[in-house]
């Protein structure tokens, strides 16, 4: 009996092979040696056209695309690596700006019931707005499509970080604060040396939620603003009717999203503590 991780990995592999096999089978045309009616021909012909490419086609495409991911042949023909790079760059810029705003404000909200109550109505109204709804306003005010995409990422990243920071700070155990008070630490020192480390795991949870949402939103945002980025690329390939490339892009979006999440999960381990 092998260990659980090994068995899980084997099972994953089996599922992958079965899934890919079914997909491949569904995507190859059935051999129609029988007498074919005109109708059959018609349907088969239409099916041939609309058929989703199978895994072998996607793998072949992936091999080609990943062997030269960074080629650049003009504005409409760039490697997948470059497109993903643009998207990751936008996500990180918008996300880091959001962190710079959300964490301090979340701190203030968490520490001051007055500010918490005063800002609550604004947060309640703004939070449920789809980040893409800001896009027209951003395009109008900023007058730059790339910056507007960053702004949209900024807006959608703010809320989870803000709310988690406020919650984490507000729920720091009273005992820790009392320790700081009996040691006569000032407000700033208490915030930095006691409240911040105590709330850090909760803050990081918010940061993880934010980066996932940002990565979800960037694809849609780039489909809207065009130019560069993985979202634009997917849309462009769809317009070229290159479904193999679309499927490959979907997988790459998933992989990059997972890496971003793993990155933050790894960072969060440094601030984790056992109570």
């Amino acid at each position, binding site marked *: 009996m092998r260990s659980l991780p090994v068995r899980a990995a084997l099972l994953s592999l089996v599922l992958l092979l079965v899934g890919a096999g079914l997909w491949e089978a569904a995507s190859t045309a059935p051999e129609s040696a029988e007498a074919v009616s005109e109708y059959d021909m018609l349907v088969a012909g239409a099916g041939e056209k609309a058929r989703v490419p199978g895994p072998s086609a996607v793998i072949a495409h992936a091999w080609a695309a990943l062997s030269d991911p960074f080629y650049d042949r003009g504005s409409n023909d760039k490697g997948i690596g470059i497109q993903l790079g643009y998207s990751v760059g936008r996500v990180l810029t918008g996300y880091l700006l959001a962190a710079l705003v959300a964490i301090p404000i979340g701190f203030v909200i968490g520490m001051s019931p007055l500010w918490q109550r005063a800002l609550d109505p604004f947060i309640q109204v703004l939070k449920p707005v789809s980040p893409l709804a800001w896009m027209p306003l951003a395009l109008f005010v900023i007058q730059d499509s790339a910056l507007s995409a960053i702004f949209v990422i900024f807006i959608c990243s703010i809320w989870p970080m803000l709310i988690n920071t406020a919650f984490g700070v507000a729920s720091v*155990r009273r*005992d*820790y604060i*009392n*320790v700081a*008070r*009996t*040691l*006569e*630490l000032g407000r700033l020192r208490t915030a930095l*040396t*006691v409240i911040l*480390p*105590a709330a*850090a795991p909760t803050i990081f949870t918010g940061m993880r939620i934010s980066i996932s949402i940002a990565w979800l939103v960037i694809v849609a945002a780039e489909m809207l603003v065009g130019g560069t980025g993985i979202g634009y690329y997917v849309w462009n390939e769809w317009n070229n009717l290159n479904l193999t490339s679309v499927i490959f892009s979907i997988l790459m979006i998933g992989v990059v999203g997972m890496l971003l999440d793993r990155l933050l999960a790894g960072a969060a381990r440094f*601030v984790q*503590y*056992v*109570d």
Partner: protein
Amino acid sequence: MTTADSRFVQVDGLSRSFPGERGGEALTVFEQVNFAIARGEFICVIGHSGCGKSTILNILAGLDQPSQGVALMEGREIAGPSLDHGVIFQNHSLLPWQSTLQNVSFAVAARHRDWSRAQILAHSRQYLDLVGLNGVEDRRPSQLSGGMRQRVGIARAFAIEPKLLLMDEPFGALDALTRGTIQDELVRICQQTTQTAFMITHDVDEAMLLADKILLMTNGPKARIAEIVEVSLPRPRSRSTVIFEPNYYPIRNHLVDFLVSRSKTFRDQPPTGYDPRHPPQVRPQADGSAAPQHPATSGAPHDP
């Protein structure tokens, strides 16, 4: 001893009420609490759960404010928390993201802001040694046993050398064996440092081992200090020998009797002549002098 020393800490007419839920009647936890702590004295407080012991301790720590009355230390009102009042909290409250050493050095650095890093660490190590905790400096509280955590809390409190040490059931969560070892350590450290201390406990034997005086509180609400019991046992005391002192069982029986029966009735039927501003100071002795008002000591479980 000068009066300044005998009234190092002075508590006058202290009461604390909490506003009732949604306009309900306010809850007065205790009222008319008066006592003094002399410099170098060790005071224990015993009383049933909810009578306001932790609240009094928080007021002495400056973490809570009384509704009436005043708490003074060295003649000045205790207005807020300060490094002069070290606190060992009911649940150790070490910072879980810091190592053992950091938990202590963090406090030492707050106390001695002009010290160098090396000085701070040396001082912290010295106090970790004092509680027998060398070799676990880099472990986090979650990697320590309950007894070790409590010792880190003790080291931290002692390391800042507070004028008044406040302890809220510091050993409440420990098993009897560990508790005994740490009690012995505390006895030794307090003797070395002549620390003034105020400690809450539910353990009669612990109070008798450590205290010079024991404050007995009636049940709440509107709890008061019923009596101040002098622990007339010679020092140095140790757990193994103190039980052979002739006064040991008279004192113990007096305390147990109070907890078991008198604490319930005391508030509503105080003995004649009782004045909460000057709670009677009693010194139970083997010959039965200053014995409790109604002698109910014979049935106590450990009577020799």
